């Protein structure tokens, strides 16, 4: 490619720059995304606007193309890595600038399981949607979930598993919440490759989420319902 063909991000107007960010996210170009985020910040874009219009907007396209079989796992991971670069810049600024806070989620992979790709994608997209996410990482025992839920006053518990042998542990966590009389204090969302809706219902989760986009929409719906219920009973 000649020099004339190279795109100078800083020379693009806002609309073209956001369109270019969609392309760069799609292609997993982390450094370009970081540069574009900084350009938009320098043009006085609010961090929350950059997050929603540029990063989440771009990742939504990636999510749709993954769902439709156009993109595959490696491409989604590279796109997520690029978004992570942008998020790293924006995250400290979001709180400072009073970005809306939709709710708080504690998320983690269950005990005996070290797989976190899906969980990480969900966490990132939830943050993109305005949720505060407390990520407990992998291999979490029930105590770890309970401590975090209480300490963080979370609205949502998200559990992930990739293995058929580890997914039943989600029921252990939910049963413990029931035993302690706190099950209804939280929205419980579950996900992972071997799970399905039937399993989610059988273990007493509020919903099974097949992908990160569904997790975000489900979380928004349940949080809105919870707020409406609290309003009605206040």
């Amino acid at each position, binding site marked *: 490619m000649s020099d004339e063909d190279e795109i100078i991000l800083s020379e693009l107007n806002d609309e073209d720059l956001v369109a270019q960010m969609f392309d760069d996210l799609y292609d997993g170009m982390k450094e370009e995304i970081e540069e574009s985020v900084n350009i938009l910040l320098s043009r006085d874009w609010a961090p929350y606007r950059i997050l929603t219009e540029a990063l989440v907007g771009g990742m939504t396209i990636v999510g749709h193309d993954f769902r439709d079989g156009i993109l595959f*796992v490696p491409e989604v*991971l*590279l796109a997520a890595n690029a978004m992570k670069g942008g998020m790293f810049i924006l995250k400290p600024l979001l709180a400072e600038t009073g970005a809306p806070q939709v709710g708080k989620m504690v998320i983690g992979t269950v005990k005996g*399981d070290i797989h976190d790709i899906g969980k990480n994608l969900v966490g990132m997209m939830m943050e993109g949607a305005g949720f505060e996410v407390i990520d407990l990482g992998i291999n979490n025992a029930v105590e770890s979930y309970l401590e975090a839920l209480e300490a963080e006053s979370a609205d949502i518990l998200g559990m992930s598993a990739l*293995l058929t042998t580890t997914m039943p542990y989600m029921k252990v966590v939910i049963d413990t919440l029931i035993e302690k009389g706190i099950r209804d204090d939280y929205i419980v969302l579950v996900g992972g490759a071997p799970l*399905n809706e039937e*399993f989610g219902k059988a273990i007493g989760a509020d919903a099974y989420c097949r992908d990160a986009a569904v997790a975000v929409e489900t979380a928004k719906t349940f949080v809105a319902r919870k707020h409406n219920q609290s309003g009605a009973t206040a």
Partner: protein
Amino acid sequence: MIPAADPKAGRILLLACGALAREILAVNQANGLDHLDLQCLPAIYHNHPEKIVPAVRDAVAKYRGSYAKIFVVYADCGTGGQLETACRDLGVEMLAGPHCYSFFEGNAAFAANDEITAFYLTDFLVRQFDSFVWEPLGFAKYPAKFDVLRDMYFGHYTKLVYQAQTDDPSLTQLAETYAGRLQLPFERRFTGYGDLETELTGLT
């Protein structure tokens, strides 16, 4: 007129994962299991567990009229219990255990090991490493992004365990090379055919 005898009468069909074909034939040959026929589903379903249950249902429907019995040579294999449910519905038996790594090692021994940070390769996966691991994970297509992808996929793994079904130094050498490519310490563990052999030899 006397009807012709059904050539499949008394025979058992093994409806198997293609990734087990070589091992099943070896077990059958070593044990003289001449009453077992083999029909395989595509091995690549190893990477797409969601395709296993519908394919097993279709294959059982196709072959059940021709055999005295069908045995499904899959463990759960990432179907989240759905294969077990399907086999119960269909009235056919299947292998016990969560996956091939477990039944090759022996389900009881594998569970006792509780080795959650090990990435496993079998003889089959060593032979087919590029098409079942390297390429699907994007390492071939995105060599410049190797470190990013490697950390995302394998960041929590602490070793690669080659579960050897056979004593083949060339496979061991390959497996060790692949461990190096994935930047994981290498361990070879001879398993033989484990519970696969026990189950197949018990089929009557």
